[in-house]
Structure formats: structure tokens, C-alpha cells
């Protein structure tokens, strides 16, 4: 079976959905075929995947020093139990 080719612009539009698994099997196949032949789109794909990894790394946002301690102190000052809902 032949797959219908897609353009770079169409690939870029779907790159994020591709990485999230939010596309059809058919489109996935067409995109993969495109990536294997297009260095530029592969660079966009690799870059985007890398960005997602960096942003999702748990160490990106560091809490200020003493944050937990101050939060705990606030909690200790709360009334003994929350108001009844």
C-alpha cells in the first residue's frame, strides 16, 4: 500500500500531537515516512522532544530556600480542622 506524502508545513502543524500520540495511525505513518526523508523536520521533531524533556524535568523550578518550612509553619497556625462542607 502506498502512503500519501505530506508537506513540511503539515508535519510541523502536527508535530506536537505526534509526540503526544494524539494522531491517527495513518497520519503517524505518513509523518514517519516524511521524517525519514527530511532532515529539517527531523530537527524540529528532535528539538521539540528535547524541549518537552527539559520542561518536564522535575528540577526546573526550584522552590525558594525555606519554602517548605514556612509553609509548614502556616499550616500549624490553621484551626484544628477545616470548616464542615
Amino acid at each position, binding site marked *: 500500500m502506498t502512503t500519501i506524502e505530506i508537506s513540511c508545513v503539515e508535519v510541523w502543524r502536527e508535530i506536537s500531537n505526534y509526540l503526544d500520540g494524539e494522531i491517527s495511525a495513518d497520519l503517524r505513518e505518513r509523518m514517519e515516512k516524511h521524517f525519514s526523508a527530511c532532515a529539517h523536520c527531523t530537527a*524540529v521533531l528532535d528539538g521539540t522532544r528535547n524541549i518537552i524533556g527539559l520542561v518536564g524535568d522535575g528540577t526546573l523550578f526550584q522552590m525558594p530556600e525555606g519554602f517548605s518550612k514556612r509553609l509548614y509553619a502556616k*499550616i500549624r497556625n490553621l484551626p484544628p480542622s477545616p470548616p464542615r*462542607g
Partner: protein
Amino acid sequence: MSAIQSQSRTNEAYLIKRVCDGEREVFYELVRPYERMVYATAISIVKNPADAEEVAQEAVLKAFSKLASFRGESKFSTWLIQITYNEAKMKLRKARPNLYESIDDAQQNEEGEFWPKDYADWRPIPSELLEENEIRQAVQDAISSLSESYREVLILRDVQRLSIKETMTILGISEGSVKTRLHRARLLLRDSLAPGIDGRWIKRQPYRKVRPW
């Protein structure tokens, strides 16, 4: 739901019950796994650390006062992030009451096509580099420079790893908007980080562009 997720929800439900029954100290145990999540959500909206800490604390205190009304329809973490998000937005609105969100440039351009910059190749930026303050700051600055509507989707989806559905609920936007904004946010980040982090600062050589645009 996986077995582990289901176990952690059962455990949370137990902790919540104990807090509601008067064991206030247990509340800290309940929120501790999400401290960083709360802080990250806050700083992604209000941007400066002092305001973010204030928002995060307010959100946690509010979660305590509303805890008895938590029905477990969503995960506790999602509920807590929703509260944090609302607190942060309120803080922002107080700080700049005359600014309408509708003039946010992102929303106006959302429908247009986005062309990622044409870097011929991509040299991966390893996560270990985040240990270097300069690099971590650069990634944070790149996120800060996104307009609000892109930034909040990116934070919820890629930093907090919430599902599309959870993100839709918290932000009150459609599935299509979540996807489009996330897509745009990721590509914008890639564009702004590519030449800075790897190309110029570390290897001291710019990326090669193969096309004139």
C-alpha cells in the same frame, strides 16, 4: 487508573478524612508531595519568586478551608492546582487591574500558521545541564517570555504533566485550544532555546540555517 494511582488515591482519601476529623498536622503530609507543583504553577503565572510563594501559601491554606467540600471527582493534585491557578490569576488581576486578557497577543494569532525556525540540525540539550544555574534560568526565562495563554497550557501539560482533559477543566478552554496553544508554546521554546543554550553559549558556534526563512 493504574494500581499505584488507585492506591495513592485511596491513601489520599484516608488522609483527607483524618484532616477533616481534626488531625490538622496530617494536612502537611497530604500536600507535601505537591509543594513543588503548587510553587511551579504559581511562579509560571505571577513570575516572581516572592509573589509565587505568597500565592502558593494562600492556595494551600484555601485548600485546607475547602477540604471538606472536596468530593474526589478529580485527583487531589488537580484540585490543588486549580486552586493555585485561581489564586495566581487573582493576584495578577490585583496587580494590573486595567489589563484585559483578551488583548493577549497569543489568542489573536492562534489561528495563523507557525513556521519553526529552520535549524538544520538539533544538538540535544541534556537534562543534566539544568543543574547549571545559567541553563535553568535560560529555560525559565524562555517560559516566562511566552504569552500567558501559551505559558499556562505549557505549564499544566508539560511541567505538571496533566492530561488534556484536566488542562481543559482548569483553564476552561476547548481541547482544540489546549492542543494548538501547547504546540505553539513548544515550538516557540525550541526556537528561543536552540541558538542560545547549545549553539552560542556552550559550543560557541551558531546553528547553521539551510533556508533563508
